[in-house]
């Protein structure tokens, strides 16, 4: 053919077509270049928005995933352990497998597994040995099983993110720590009576019932939200189970992250695991416990009883993330599992009691910061496998069973010998995915100088500790920042409040080591695993009371409104949806909302559990963002909202 590519005419046509194409491209580029700023300003409402690639906004993203039932990973991830009344069986909640496992302790193997949907967490056995209670964290219920048959006989609804659980001696009452409702629920298992809810601090996590069943101790994980430059505190709550009233709330100053509590047999004292924090000081060093240290709180139950914080750390060694704690039946030895340190500490409780009895109040207060004190009461450090979290004591006090959460095993500690004498394999896949390896890195404090803290220490369950920190890198005493949640952040780069880290590998890279861990940076392999894990962190299931559905809908409309109540158009830049654009609820740009600078726009998921708010936590509640810190509509237009409307907006935001 005369017009073929090989002919002169064909070549001319080809060149002409190429030229035309190039012209179109150039013209398109020029037009786009002229149009782009206008488009950017239309979308953001701001003329100062830095130019980005089209894909920065126009890419396919979805809202972060919400954690669902068993994740199909094949891992077991034991969260809770409890021993049967006769000491022959061990019950283990397999959080990643949605199962309750029954272990024959003589055969040291799993003999039965029953399905418990909704991420089973806490487990307890009634003193009469007949009942087993299992909390389903994501299903908002507690299952009461016949201990012999492991059939679910009763279900107690608890729309509260049920965590720690205890059963009365005869199994008729169940006590449940409500992580999402900030209370402890007391309910009859089969009586149908109205449950009682008692306030128990910010994110109640663990419960412990005295031998008589009359006193319940409740530990809460997060400190109460406080404004910047305020000493944070968590608390230990004692409940009179007979009267169903709170006996006392005991303040634990500069302490939080209580994931374990053990009350003595005679209900005279309780031990709670804590992280002793020093967030009001500039983070100029981590040496000498300058950031935080692992500890236990010794709290006497009597009305004027003492509250003493006792470090478990040593001067040159730290044992991060104390989690579970159990007491021997004679209350003479306590065992504390350190999730970030791969060990269990045995504590001489007699020595603790002597120390408390012989010290005046000043000396007891000083103990909390004395890293050398542990030499007086620590009996042993007992190595375990990855991420020991919860423990159970055998009824005869001779064995402690330690859930090694990220090793899918249970370590058996011989109490007289103070060492691990056995290990029970809980099954689960042997394949270690990048995510699983990253989860181990996340919970392992060995990457920090002297093992002082892990990623998890500030990001429990990948979320935020709710504390406000002062990083030296931002100027000592200046630019305080609140810890941000890591859940659902995969597509929300850049990171950090100043938006300087383009990806998670940078965020957790060498600079992170210099600023925070103060040790060797993560190796590339460990960093890759860590990033894979963080990117996989889902949001928790949303909990929203039905009775607020209408208010929520009105709040949603307010969030997406484009006109004020007076009908006046709201400038694009001051609409909620502009910066907090779905589906990520962030435009991933910097914004100045009148809080002393421009900051990376945060996504809005899980706001309910994310107090305090704004980059430096200056707003203790969501309402304060607008009632206190946005007097001139610097943070969206809200000044025209009625009090009711503002509440409805908050209801909507809390439901995200």
């Amino acid at each position, binding site marked *: 053919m005369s017009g073929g590519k090989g002919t002169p005419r064909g070549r001319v046509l080809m060149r002409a077509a190429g030229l035309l194409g190039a012209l179109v491209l150039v013209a398109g580029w020029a037009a786009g270049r002229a149009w782009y700023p206008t488009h950017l300003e239309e979308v953001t409402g701001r003329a100062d928005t830095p130019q980005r690639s089209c894909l920065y906004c126009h890419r396919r993203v979805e809202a972060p995933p919400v954690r669902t039932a068993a994740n199909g990973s094949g891992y077991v991830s034991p969260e809770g352990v409890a021993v049967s009344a006769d000491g022959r069986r061990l019950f283990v909640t397999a959080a990643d497998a949605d199962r309750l496992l029954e272990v024959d302790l003589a055969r040291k193997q799993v003999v039965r597994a029953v399905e418990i949907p909704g991420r089973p967490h806490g487990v307890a056995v009634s003193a009469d040995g007949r009942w087993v209670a299992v909390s389903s964290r994501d299903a908002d219920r507690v299952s009461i099983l016949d201990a012999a048959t492991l059939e679910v006989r009763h279900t107690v609804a608890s729309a509260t993110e049920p965590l720690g659980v205890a059963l009365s001696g005869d199994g008729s009452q169940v006590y449940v720590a409500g992580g999402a409702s900030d209370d402890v629920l007391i309910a009859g298992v089969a009586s149908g009576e109205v449950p009682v809810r008692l306030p128990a601090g910010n994110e109640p996590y663990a419960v412990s019932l005295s031998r008589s069943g009359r006193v319940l101790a409740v530990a809460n994980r997060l400190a109460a939200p406080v404004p910047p430059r305020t000493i944070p505190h968590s608390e230990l709550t004692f409940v009179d189970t007979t009267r169903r009233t709170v006996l006392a709330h005991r303040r634990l100053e500069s302490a939080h992250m209580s994931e374990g509590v053990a009350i003595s047999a005679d209900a005279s004292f309780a031990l709670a695991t804590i992280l002793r924090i020093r967030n009001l000081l500039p983070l100029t060093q981590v040496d000498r416990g300058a950031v935080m240290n692992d500890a236990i709180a010794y709290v006497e139950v009597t009305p004027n009883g003492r509250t003493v914080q006792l470090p478990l750390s040593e001067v040159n060694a730290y044992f991060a993330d104390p989690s579970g704690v159990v007491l021997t039946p004679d209350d003479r030895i306590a065992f504390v599992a350190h999730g970030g340190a791969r060990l269990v500490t045995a504590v001489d409780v007699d020595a603790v009691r002597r120390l408390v009895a012989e010290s005046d109040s000043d000396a007891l207060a000083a103990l909390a910061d004395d890293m050398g004190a542990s030499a007086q009461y620590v009996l042993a450090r007992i190595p375990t496998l990855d991420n020991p979290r919860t423990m159970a004591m055998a009824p005869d006090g001779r064995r402690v069973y330690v859930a090694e959460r990220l090793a899918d095993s249970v370590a058996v500690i011989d109490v007289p010998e103070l060492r691990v004498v056995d290990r029970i394999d809980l099954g689960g896949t042997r394949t270690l995915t990048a995510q699983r390896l990253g989860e181990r890195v996340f919970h392992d404090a060995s990457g920090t100088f002297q093992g002082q803290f892990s990623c998890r220490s500030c990001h429990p369950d990948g979320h935020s500790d709710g504390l406000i920190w002062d990083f030296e890198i931002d100027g000592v005493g200046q630019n305080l920042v609140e810890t941000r949640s890591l859940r659902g952040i995969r597509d929300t780069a850049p990171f950090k409040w100043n938006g300087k880290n383009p990806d998670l590998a940078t965020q957790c890279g060498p600079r992170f080591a*210099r600023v925070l861990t103060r040790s060797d940076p993560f190796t590339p392999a460990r960093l890759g695993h860590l990033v894979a894990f963080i990117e996989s962190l889902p949001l928790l299931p949303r909990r929203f009371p039905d009775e607020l559905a209408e208010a929520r809908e009105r709040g949603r409309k307010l969030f997406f409104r484009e006109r004020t109540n007076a009908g006046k158009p709201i400038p694009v830049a001051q609409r909620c949806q502009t910066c907090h654009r779905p589906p990520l609820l962030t435009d991933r740009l910097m914004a100045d909302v009148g809080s002393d600078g421009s900051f990376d726009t945060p996504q809005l998921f899980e706001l309910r559990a994310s107090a305090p708010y704004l980059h430096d936590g200056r707003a203790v509640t969501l309402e304060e963002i607008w009632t206190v810190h946005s007097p001139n509509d610097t943070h969206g237009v809200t000044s025209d909202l009625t009090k009711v409307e503002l509440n409805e907006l908050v209801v909507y935001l809390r439901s995200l």
Partner: protein
Amino acid sequence: MRSRAALANAMCRTCVVSVVIAVGCNPLPASEPAGERIVVAQVPAGAGVSMTRERLRPNARYPLGSRIVVASPDRGPGDVRALSGDLVAAGAPDVSPDSDSLLFAGRRTPESSWAVFEAGISGRRAPRVVVERDGDCIDPAYLGAGRIVVVCRESAGPPARGTGSWSLFTAQRDGSELERITFGPGPAFDPTPLQDGRILFSMWQAAGRGRPGQGAVALFTANPDGTLIEPFAGSHEPPELKVRARETGDGRVVFVADGADGRPPSLRQVEMRRPRATGAALELRAREAAIHLLDLGGVEPLADGGFLVAGRAAGPDGGPPQTWAVFRAGPSGTEMEGAFDDPGWDDVEAVPVESRAAPRGRPVFRERDRSTGAVVCYDARRSDGSVGPAGDRHPVSVSVQAAGVVAVAAASGSGSGSGTPPAPNASGPASGTELGLVPIEGDGSFFIEVPADRPIRVETRDAGGAVIAASEWFWVRPGEVRSCFGCHESRDAAPVNRVVAAIANPPVPLGSLAQAARR
């Protein structure tokens, strides 16, 4: 070298760290001799060296003819191989964590300065110089993250910056990026890495409880970039000389201690978990006859929990001292026995050729482009009670002072005078220059900008201007923000979580200090 028994013992020790009650964790008896190979520093027999009291006189420690060899104790003294090549003198060996190489100090000629060399343990690689400069460089050690530390003496420079004294320097393993990291008024020496990444070393301090007016040598830690100088142990306890410290694998630090009481040097130990409160003698006990050591060349932990000790033993029945030899002791110093003794040589130092975990690294906190650092004190009123505020005397101001170097005349030459570290001269650090006076906030805090890389100290004063307490000399590196938790507070104490008034504003700058001083 790390046998099954050694591993079992190491694991066992892991479980008994901090154990008050430990049942059923008996270390297995070691079934192997002191080690397959050891590196030994040998001095011609009869040279009469003094290893502890001549720490800062390398010529006296390692006279001409001294050398480094690798030996196999179980094959006897005849089976040694020299590693120091053609050097006229060599000593102070340190074996790399992978046990492939060693660093040591050496001299090419009788006139040359001491330099640091690296050689292969196999002996097939000739020594190559790693650090060589105008002044002497000795006592090298491997750190984490591919770095090394050496002790060098500045040969010239302004006295105010501490030149003329021995200081620690760190460098890349090939000797590049050599950087001075200690800036005290007196000598710093005998560095050794801690597993957590810090450097443990000996340093003279003015206020130590040594001979009146002469201070003492205690153990300190600092980061490899020289930031965060901290007392580690022995600052307030006799004797006044603590050198040759080594971290063991079971949570202890052992070191050589010497006093002015005429008794020979001895071994002491502290526990890492509480080094300032656990000092105790490490008694060496022989299996059969007692071995009395008159001098110690050093102590090196073994992987199986025992120690290699180089020492000069007293002769039997009060006879003349024996030559220097290498001994092996069990984990608690028990059942010491001879491990190696080359009759033609004094075996003054010995290091096992064993693989061990490399120390961790630490990031660099020093900022090269800065000339100042800062000191933030959280509460100058907080004290351990031994010094500081008493009664109605509250600190209301803090005087910031800078010092010149302590001229340790005796140690200023490679081959003359006493090398016993150290004694300040009359114009020593007690007469520091005041840089300024800064008010202390009502909550006891202050935040000041100070010159970097020179000895400074702070003095708290009451309303009448009288001194309440003075710190020991310390330094900050450029860009370092140094936190003080109190004023002579317990070093075991973490800071109290509280709002610090002084950090509401930037650090008080030097200009203001000078202004305040003029007022």
